[in-house]
């Protein structure tokens, strides 16, 4: 398959649209900052990659994730020439934590909130008239899972246009539980570094517009084409990833796309900076790519965006499309001493690199061992 991607949108701590996010990434600007929405006296860690959008007197407010999502979808739809009326267009939203942050504020502080806003359909209907909306709560690979389903709808002829998005705002429960088991909190996300100490959560959203490949050009810009998405489940452990199944997912994505490792020019790592994820990801990649492992350039966004959970893998995909458009590859920050398992990998470190990319592989792995790998090609 070669599904056209005709619009993109992104919101993160380092930018309020895809251009701003990409510019920050290339400049090596991190969004890590002092905690804003939670009471720092309750936690060991004090820094997060939050979007600075809280203006009221209270430290936090409800429905921030919903706002990020609407921004990203609005950007992607506008870019694709769809405007604000998305009635009849399926909108698939991958998220790890949906509006659970609002539920937390409702329970703890009696903030106004109803169950009809735990998922995003209500807000998407209000803003865009969309009525075929799907909130898919698939942890940290959610948005690539949603991408696969969106592609399947187009391939089955069940829709002409699909919008796929990902979104998360940090929940206090998820952050607090991580904080509980980190006596020494990580100072930053240091993907693949030998001294990485764990991940740090961030807020973020991303969106893309997909079109059926056999239709006339509808307007908008051709950012690239989706070639395939592999989906699996480890079925092993609630939180720890599994090397064999990560490798199987990469292979499945290659098979879907009809490509081999030596065709790949860029790998966007999941790269959460946890000891286990980065090790497993490096080993699985090395196993699948074999001698071709030194071919693609590799980078990841989490050293600057933090781990934006369910939105992170689609955000990585949007960045891959921007790499294709500009020939610039953002670096991984804080990667001074790569792990031995990454020996021979062409890691982009410290500063942006120049590289022509025609085929990119994007990784997303989540709690529950749910794995998704996407392949996109340049226009």
């Amino acid at each position, binding site marked *: 398959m070669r599904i056209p991607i005709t619009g993109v949108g992104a919101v993160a701590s380092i930018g309020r649209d895809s251009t701003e996010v990409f510019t920050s990434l290339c400049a090596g600007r991190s969004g890590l900052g002092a905690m804003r929405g939670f*009471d720092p*006296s*309750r*936690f060991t860690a004090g820094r997060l990659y939050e979007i600075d959008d809280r203006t009221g007197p209270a430290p936090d407010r409800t429905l921030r994730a919903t706002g990020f999502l609407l921004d990203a979808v609005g950007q992607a739809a506008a870019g694709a020439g769809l405007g604000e009326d998305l*009635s009849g267009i399926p909108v698939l939203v991958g998220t*790890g*934590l*949906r509006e*659970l942050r609002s*539920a*937390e504020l*409702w*329970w*703890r502080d009696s903030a106004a909130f*109803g*169950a*009809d806003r*735990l*998922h995003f*359909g*209500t807000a*998407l*209907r209000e803003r865009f008239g969309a*009525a*075929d*909306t*799907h*909130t*898919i*709560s*698939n*942890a940290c690979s959610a948005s690539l899972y949603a991408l*696969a*389903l969106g592609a*399947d709808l187009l*391939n*089955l002829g*069940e829709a002409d246009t699909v919008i796929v998005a990902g979104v998360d705002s940090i*929940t*206090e*429960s*998820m952050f*607090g*539980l991580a*904080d*509980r*088991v980190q006596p020494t909190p990580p100072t930053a996300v240091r993907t693949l570094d030998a001294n990485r100490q764990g991940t740090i959560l961030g807020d973020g959203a991303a969106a893309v517009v997909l079109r059926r490949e056999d239709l006339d050009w509808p307007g908008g810009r051709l950012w690239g084409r989706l070639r395939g998405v592999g*989906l*699996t*489940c*480890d*079925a092993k*452990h*609630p*939180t720890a990833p599994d090397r064999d199944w990560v490798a199987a997912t990469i292979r499945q994505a290659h098979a879907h796309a009809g490509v081999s490792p030596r065709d790949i020019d860029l790998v966007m790592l999941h790269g959460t900076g946890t000891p286990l994820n980065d090790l497993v990801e490096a080993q699985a990649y090395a196993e699948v790519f074999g001698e071709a492992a030194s071919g693609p350039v590799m980078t990841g966004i989490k050293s600057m965006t933090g781990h934006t959970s369910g939105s992170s893998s689609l955000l990585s995909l949007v960045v891959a499309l921007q790499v294709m458009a500009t020939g610039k590859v953002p670096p991984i920050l804080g990667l001074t001493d790569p792990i031995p398992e990454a020996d021979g990998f062409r890691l982009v470190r410290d500063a942006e690199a120049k590289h022509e990319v025609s085929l990119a592989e994007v990784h997303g792995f*989540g*709690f*529950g*061992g*749910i794995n998704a790998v996407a392949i996109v090609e340049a226009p």
Partner: protein
Amino acid sequence: MITVTGVGVALPGAESAEALFAAAGPDGVVDPSAVLGRKGLRYKDRATQIGLSVAQRVLVDAGLLADGELTVDGTRVAVVVSSNLGNVETACRVTKTIAEETSRGLSPMDTPNASSNIISSEVAIRFGLHGPNLMMCNGATSGLDAVRWAATLLRSGRADRAVVVGIEPDNEIVRSLVGERVADGGAAIVLESAEAAAERGATVYAVLGAQTRGPDLAGCLEKVAATETDGPTGWFVPAGLQADSATLAGVARHDLSATWGHLSGALGVVQCAAAIGRFRDGDGGPVYLTSGSDGDDGSAVLVLRSPATEPVPA
């Protein structure tokens, strides 16, 4: 053609499709340990426990699990779970503990439950199901949406079989959020293509007909009716439908939310199970399953037909 080849029910006082269809209301409580044993359930939330028990029931019923072993290739079995309220309790409770005791007061055992996909991933882990794993938290239509995505995964060739689970737990927090008692149970079905079902000699309980999502119930019903040859003899109505509604006048109505309490994301899957109970009760006419009223963000309709009424392929 997509078929239903397994059904599992775990609602208070109803443990089969027939009992679900015949019941007048909840009776007692669902006890997951009666199905699963006590081992390994201690730190799992209520939604996950019930989800696991109904998943076990449906896998055994479909013949996909015998003596604790899968009878088919687990890499080709997808899992699709629907629940809106599943881990709301964990998120809310943990946040209050942080306010009262700081993060040091938390139990690390809650960590997996902070992620909403805990139910779908635990089903995969317990039964070794490596196919695509989806957690739908999609509001009023979530259960029927889960059936739709399971069918999509089969049609796109990503899986040969799919286990679909709908489950909503009851507790103080979710009851306060939705304003009424939650069903505290759920149901599950197994979907297979007709070919995959025939290959292993599976019994077909029902066949999926037309399915749609749209902005309003009337429009969805109209769209479905346009593609179905036979009109419905039964209608499983959305939660909160006005009793005097003139829609589908004369068709027998089944209001499972009125019978069982708030079903939310479990509704669509529980409707599938009840429809199978209805077929077994003797009425083989097509049924319309519907969720999402006009006050919701959308409506969904799915037609289920009894295999007895399917035309024999030439």
